C-alpha cells in the first residue's frame, strides 16, 4: 500500500473513477470493460467507495470525471450511491463530469446526476449515420443520441460534450461533414473528434486484416481532420487540444489537468494515478480488484517511478498536445528544466520545418503539425 502512505501534497487534483462496465462490446474498443450482467454491481460500487476512503478528506480534488466503460450501465441505485460518495467527500469540486451512453441515458438517470452535483456530461455519440454506428458495433441509434442530449439540456445541464469518430472504414468526407453539422446543431458546448484508431485485438482490426473493410487512406483521414478543425472553428468552437474543441470557457478542466501533467487519482479497475513521482495502474480485472480492496490490499498492478528525464519529457509531450502549448516559464517552474535548453535540437529542427511555433514565451505545434503530431512529439520523448 506504499502509494497511499504518502499524502498527496499537490495543489489541485483530478479524480477519475472508472466504471468498467458496458452492455456489450463495441467492435473498435480496446479499453478494459466487462458486461454489467456478469457482476455483483453493489459489491463493485462498495469497493470503489472504499478505495475512495483511502484518500484523506482534505485531498484537494478540483475536478471529478466518472468514466468507463459506461457509468450509465450501473443500476440507478448503485450509481446514486457512487455519486453520493464522491459528492459528499468533495462538494467543492469545480467540474464533475459523467460519461453517458446515449442508449442508456433516461430521465431517471439525469435526475440522479443533477441531484449529486454532476455539472458536465459527455455523450459517446460517435456518429449520426446508422451504417457507421453498426460498423462500430454501437448499440444505440442517432435518434437515441439526439433525444438523450435534448433531454439532458431540458433537465438543466449547461455543459454538455459529445464524442465523434472520423475515418471510419467506408466513410466519406461528406458523411463526416454531416456528422459535424449535426453535432453543432445540437447546441452542445464541447466536441471531441477522434480519428478512428484500429486497436490490436479488436474485431475491427480482424475485419480490416481479413479485407472485409478498407481502412481510410491517410490523405482522406487528414482531410477529414482538417475539415473538423475548420468546420468547428466557424461554428464557434475553439480547438484546445489535438482532438478537443469547446465553446469559449467550456474546455474540460479535468482533461486539461492531464495535459498540464498535474497529479490525479484514479479509482477503480484499470484506472491510473499519478502523484507527481509515480504512475500507478490498478489491476484490470473486476473480481480481483474487488477481492483486493475487500482484503485491504493495494489494487495497484503496475507502478512506474519517474526519473527527472521522464517527468520533463512527459510534461513536454503532454503540454505540446494542447493549442496553448508549453508555457516556458511554467515549465521551468514545475519541472525545473529549461525547455529551450534541453530540447534545443528538436525545437530548432521542427521550427525550421515550420512544425513548431515559438511566440510570447510559448512553444506550440503549428497547425500544419497537428495531423502529424507524433512525428514531432517523439523527439521530445527522451533527451
Amino acid at each position, binding site marked *: 500500500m506504499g502509494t497511499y502512505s504518502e499524502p498527496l501534497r499537490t495543489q489541485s487534483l*483530478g479524480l*477519475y473513477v472508472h466504471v468498467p462496465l458496458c452492455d456489450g462490446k463495441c467492435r473498435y474498443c480496446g479499453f478494459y470493460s466487462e458486461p454489467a450482467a456478469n457482476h455483483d454491481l453493489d459489491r463493485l460500487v462498495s469497493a470503489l467507495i472504499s478505495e475512495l476512503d483511502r484518500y484523506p478528506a482534505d485531498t484537494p480534488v478540483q475536478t471529478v470525471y466518472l468514466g468507463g466503460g459506461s457509468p450509465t450501465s450501473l443500476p440507478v441505485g448503485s450509481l446514486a450511491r457512487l455519486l453520493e460518495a464522491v459528492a459528499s467527500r468533495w462538494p467543492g469540486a469545480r467540474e464533475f463530469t459523467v460519461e453517458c451512453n446515449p442508449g442508456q441515458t433516461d430521465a431517471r438517470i439525469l435526475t440522479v446526476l443533477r441531484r449529486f452535483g454532476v455539472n458536465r456530461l459527455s455523450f459517446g455519440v460517435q456518429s449520426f449515420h446508422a451504417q457507421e454506428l453498426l460498423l462500430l458495433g454501437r448499440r444505440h441509434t442517432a435518434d437515441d443520441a439526439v433525444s438523450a442530449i435534448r433531454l439532458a439540456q431540458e433537465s438543466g445541464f449547461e455543459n454538455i460534450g459529445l464524442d465523434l469518430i472520423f475515418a471510419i472504414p467506408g466513410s466519406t468526407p461528406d458523411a463526416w461533414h454531416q456528422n459535424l453539422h449535426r453535432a453543432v446543431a445540437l447546441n452542445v458546448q464541447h466536441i471531441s473528434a*477522434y*480519428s*478512428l*484508431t484500429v486497436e490490436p485485438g479488436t474485431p475491427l482490426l480482424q475485419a480490416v486484416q481479413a479485407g472485409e473493410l478498407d481502412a481510410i487512406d*491517410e*490523405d482522406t*483521414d*487528414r482531410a477529414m*481532420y482538417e475539415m473538423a478543425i475548420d468546420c468547428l472553428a466557424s461554428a464557434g468552437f475553439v480547438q484546445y487540444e*489535438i*482532438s478537443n474543441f469547446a465553446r469559449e470557457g467550456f474546455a474540460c478542466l479535468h*482533461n486539461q489537468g*492531464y*495535459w498540464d501533467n498535474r497529479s*490525479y487519482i*484514479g479509482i477503480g479497475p*484499470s*484506472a*491510473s494515478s*499519478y502523484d507527481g513521482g509515480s*504512475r500507478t*495502474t490498478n489491476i484490470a480485472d473486476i473480481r480481483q480488484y474487488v477481492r483486493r480492496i475487500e482484503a485491504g490490499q493495494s489494487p495497484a498492478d*503496475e507502478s*512506474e517511478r519517474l526519473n527527472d528525464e*521522464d517527468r520533463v*519529457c*512527459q510534461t513536454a*509531450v*503532454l503540454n505540446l*498536445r494542447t493549442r496553448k502549448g508549453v508555457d516556458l516559464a511554467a515549465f521551468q517552474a514545475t519541472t525545473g528544466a529549461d525547455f529551450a535548453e534541453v530540447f534545443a535540437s528538436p525545437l530548432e*529542427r521542427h521550427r*525550421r*520545418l515550420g*512544425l513548431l511555433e515559438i511566440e510570447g514565451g510559448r512553444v506550440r505545434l503549428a497547425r500544419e*503539425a*497537428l*495531423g*502529424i*503530431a*507524433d*512525428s*514531432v*512529439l*517523439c*523527439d*521530445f*520523448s*527522451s533527451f
Partner: protein
Amino acid sequence: MDTRYIRNFSIVAHIDHGKSTLADRMLELTGTITSRDAKEQLLDDMDIERERGITIKASAVTMHYRYNGQTYMLNLIDTPGHVDFHYEVSRALAACEGALLVVDASQGVEAQTVANAYLAVETGVEIMGVINKIDLPAAQPEVVAEEMEHVLGIRRKECFRISAKTGAGVKDLLDAICELLPGPEDRSAETTKALVFDSHADQYRGVVCYVRVFSGKLRVRQKIRLMHSGRSYLVTELGQFRPAMVPVEELGTGEVGYIVANIRNLADVTIGDTVTDDANPADAPLKSYQPPMQMVFSDFYPGDNTEYSKLRAAFEKLALNDASFSFSPQNSPALGFGFRCGFLGLLHMEIIQERLERENDLDIVQTAPTVTYEVVMSDGRVKRIESPSELPDRTLIRELREPFVRLEIITSTESIGGIMKLAEARRCKLIKTDYLNPTRVMMEYKGPLAEIVYDFYDQIKGISRGYATMDYELTGFEATHLVKIDILVNGQPVDALSIIVHRDHAEQRGRKLVTKLKKSIPRHQFEIPLQVAIGGKIIARETVKAFRKDVTAKLYGGDVTRKMKVLKKQKEGKKRMKSIGSVQIPQKAFMSVLDTSD
C-alpha cells in the same frame, strides 16, 4: 630440438571443409589437450569466430607426438578458408614446410581448394592431400580423389581418407606427417633469423609476435632487432602455443612460438619482418610477404555526430588486433566527420563493423563499399581514389582505370548457362573452362573487381542452387569507360550516395538506384525529391511522399505510460540514420545503391 624431428605444417582448405575440426582431433590424439578441455573448433577462440562458425584468424599450436620411437614436435597452423583472408594463408604457409590440403568428400574440389593449392605450390611447401568427412552418407571419396588428381595433380593413391569428426584415419595422417613431410633445414649454426608471421596485442604483455625460427635460435633476455623497422628490443618472454601460451627459455631452428619484448605498439611490428640478433645481425632478411591488399573501401560515420572521438578510439583499439584494415579521417560535406576504411573484402568489412558497434556501444552509418580507381589526370599524373566522391571533374581526367581480377568459378554443369549470362552482364570475359569431371566444371574469367565484389557470389550461389564457389585474385588496373552517378536528395547532392559504374550501364543503374533509394528512405514530414544525375544531367527522379497522418487521437492520464514508450520507440527508429539537411537517411539507403536486383 633436433630439426629432423620437427614438422611445421598448415591446414588449408575451402571454407567449412573441416580444417579446425581436424586440428581438434590432432590436439586430442597428441595429448595436447585433455578431453576435459576439448570443445569444437577449439582454435577458433574469438567470439565472432565461434558465433559464425568460421575461422577468421590463423592460429598456431605446438604438439608432441611419438612416432617410431621418437618424439616429434609438430607445429600446426589452422588457417581461414574464406577468400577475404587469403593473406592469412600465405603467411602461415611461409612459416611451414608442409601443407595439408583438406577437401570435403561430399563437396569435392572447390574454388578456395584450388586457390590454396596454388598458394602452397608457389610457397614451395610439400602438399599432402586429405579427403575429409568420409563418414558422411554423401561422401564420394573416390570421385573426389579423381578430381584432386585431375585438377591439383595430387596422386589419388596418395590422398588420405579421414573423418575429422569421428577421428577415423587421423592417427595414420599424423604418422604420415612424421614420415613424409620434410623437416626444417638445420641452420642452427648460423645467426638468428626468425619470421614474424602474425601478432596480437595483449593487454599485459604488449605486442606478442608469432615467429618461426629459420636459423640460429632465440633466447630469453636476448637483444633482438626487427630488420625492417631497425628497432631493437630485449626479449622478456619466449613461448609456445599449446594452445595456451606456455613460456620456454629458448626457441631453436625450425621451431614455432612467440616473442614478448616490451613492444607497445602494434604498428611497430610489420608482419613478415625478420627478427635477428642485435649484436650479430643477419646480412639479409628472410623473404617477406606482400602486405595484405585492401579490396574495398567504405566510409564509416558515427550515427550521432558527437560520437566522432568515440569512433576514433574504437578504431584504434581494433587496429591493435587487426592490422589488415585501414582507417583515415574523412570529412564529407553531407555526412560530416568520419573515417575512410579499407578492407580485404565484404566479410572482413562486416566483421569490423559488427565488432566496432558491439564492443563499443556505437551506432555506425556506413556508405556503400567501393573499389579503388586509378585516375590519369590530363597532366599525366596518376592518382588513386577510394571513394566516388573523390573523383575529379570530368574535364580534368584523361583516363579512368579500375581493378581487374582473375576469377575462378567451380560449378555444376547445369548452371553453366546461367552463370555465363551473369558473368557477361557483369563485363567478365571467359578465359577457359575445364571439366573436373563430367558434372563439374571450372571456369576462369577476367573481369572488373567492382562487378564481382558485392553480390556476385550470392548471385552465382542462387543460380547454381548453392553449388558454385568462386575465388578471385587481383591482376591489375585497366582503363574502362566509367562514369559517376550522383544523387540529389531534397535538391542537395549527397556525395556518400555516388557510385561509379560503366558507361553502358549507367542510365539503367541510375534509374534502378533511385527506385531502391525511394524504398529505403522513410517518409518524412515533407516531400523529398530524389534525383539522379550523370555528368550534371538529371536522368531520373522520384519522390518520397510526405506522410499525411501520424498522430495519436486520444492521450489521457491512463495512456501516458504506454504512449511514451511508443514515442520513444519511434524516436529510436531514427537512430542509425544520418541527417542530411532535414532528411534522415537510414543505413540501408546507403547500401541500397549497390542493390542491382529487380
